[in-house]
């Protein structure tokens, strides 16, 4: 079974040979070709494509991973802080007034060097690697991008005080992301992964999540699905307060943080929405070693009731300092222990 078939079968709750696993390795990938996850890397399509292949050759999980977040932010004019070897972060907000918000423009994708470099990276990756292992685009969601334009505090304040301007900005960000996604899809990308902690319960109330996050995520996800993408949504921060609402986003896969018990999520959504997650990005993958990863994956899978409808993933994004050996152990352990899913002896208490 190819990785592509394995993932599609998991999504459709059909039989899989083993549970698919995705290791979120885009920040770690540059090391494999002697590079760093820095600004120059984001402008080098060959480096992005080559490193995606090289890290996959070591880890052997079920997707190639390319990170589109920086390109989208740069395309929209964000002012970012670029660490030597890590994800960029907000340097200064570029929108501080309503008047500035009204002026935000949807960029021309091919005129922006970051966005055009990224599309070329997708093209090269597909050309070199084919489609047995799908290309996953890992991206920030609308609200993460919004926080990079406004700054987190202003965004939080405007969410209550100026919802009209917030929605106007969400619409422009969504339009940009859909335009960009369309070009990536043409070049062979199959999975679109949205990471959007700024829209989730770590920051905002379930009420605001319902009013604001859900309709915007759904509009975007529906757009991606029309293009033929398989979609994943991650709102982070302990999703139980909004778990009842996630289904209304229409995502194919609901990707949970480590704060949610994946076996519980699987029970809730089985035969409706596939679920992903389960691996603690810090306690297991950062602090632990390969033997800890193996032990934790075994425990995780032993708790699952079904082998299908699930993808084993870290509970959030990973930085460049995660050990490649740990990611390799994660993939190997998932394949090794897949048969344990559904084997737990049921008692009155569970």
């Amino acid at each position, binding site marked *: 079974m190819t990785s592509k078939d394995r993932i599609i079968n998991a999504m459709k709750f059909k039989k899989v040979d083993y549970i698919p696993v995705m290791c979120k390795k885009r920040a770690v990938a540059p090391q494999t070709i002697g590079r760093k996850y820095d600004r120059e890397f984001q402008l080098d399509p060959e480096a992005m494509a080559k490193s995606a292949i090289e890290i996959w050759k070591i880890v052997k999980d079920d997707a190639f991973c390319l990170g589109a977040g920086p390109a989208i932010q740069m395309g929209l004019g964000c002012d970012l802080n670029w660490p030597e070897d*890590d994800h960029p972060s907000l340097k200064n907000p570029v929108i501080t007034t309503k008047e500035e918000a009204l002026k935000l423009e949807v960029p021309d994708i091919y005129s922006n060097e970051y966005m055009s470099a990224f599309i070329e990276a997708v093209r090269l990756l597909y050309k070199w690697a084919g489609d047995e292992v799908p290309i996953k685009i890992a991206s920030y969601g609308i609200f993460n991008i919004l926080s990079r334009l406004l700054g987190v505090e202003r965004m939080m304040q405007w969410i209550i005080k100026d919802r009209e301007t917030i929605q106007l900005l969400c619409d422009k960000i969504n339009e940009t992301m859909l335009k960009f996604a369309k070009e990536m899809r043409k070049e062979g990308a199959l999975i679109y992964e949205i990471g959007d902690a700024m829209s989730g319960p770590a920051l*905002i109330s379930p009420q605001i999540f319902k009013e604001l996050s859900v309709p915007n995520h759904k509009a975007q996800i529906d757009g991606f699905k029309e293009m033929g993408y398989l979609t994943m949504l991650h709102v982070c921060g302990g999703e139980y307060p909004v778990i009842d609402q996630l289904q209304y986003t229409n995502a194919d896969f609901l990707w949970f943080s480590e704060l949610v018990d994946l076996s519980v999520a699987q029970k809730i959504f089985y035969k409706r929405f596939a679920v992903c997650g389960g691996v603690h990005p810090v*306690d297991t993958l950062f*602090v632990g070693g390969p033997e800890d990863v193996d032990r934790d994956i075994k425990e995780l899978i032993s708790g699952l009731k079904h082998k299908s409808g699930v993808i084993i993933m870290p509970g959030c994004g990973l930085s460049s300092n995660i050990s490649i050996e740990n990611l390799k152990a994660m993939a190997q352990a998932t394949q090794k222990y897949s048969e344990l899913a559904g084997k737990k002896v049921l008692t009155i208490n569970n």
Partner: protein
Amino acid sequence: MSKTKEELLEELSDAVVDMDEELAASTAKEYIDEGYDAYDGISEGLVDGMNKAGELFEEEEYFIPELLLCSDAMNSGIEVLSPHIERSRSKDEKIVVIGVVQGDTHDIGKNLVALMLEVAGYKIVDLGKDVPPQAFVDKAKELNADIIALSTLMTTTMPRMKEVIDILKKENIRENFKVIVGGGPISQKFADEIGADGYSVNATASVRLAQRIVS
């Protein structure tokens, strides 16, 4: 008819909880015009409201947007009252040096911790973001601080927290300061491993932590 001090203190508190900047400012003006003590207006009115907002945050009725707007309301009232304060700060006031560690620019969590500690009566010295480890130590020494509070949201910058503690040990001043840590990837386990004095899961919990470790 004039309102009593207690009535106006309650209105100040309610204005903060209701996130009403204009009302907080106008009530503060009314309070001062009545001749009541400005410090009490802050500590028993505005800060009382912020504490109530903190409780609503703990109870998961208020979230980050609400807390920030309550803070804005509190600050608009403080702006009116603070020029009228006559009392000097208490000599027993505890000093907290706080910042986001070097390499990291995510600061909303740190800002909320600083806010809640200040509301609780701590003097806050905020070093901002992307702060080198030595800078924390130097400022703490300069001010004879009680607590060094470190924040980060990234695993790549977590080691900077241990560096602060290592510098304190190297200078033989580790026992002079309490070090507390927090942020998305941080855990009690990590705090114990690096030898921190405490870990706080959120802004309101940081107040209880600070009170416990400096009592």
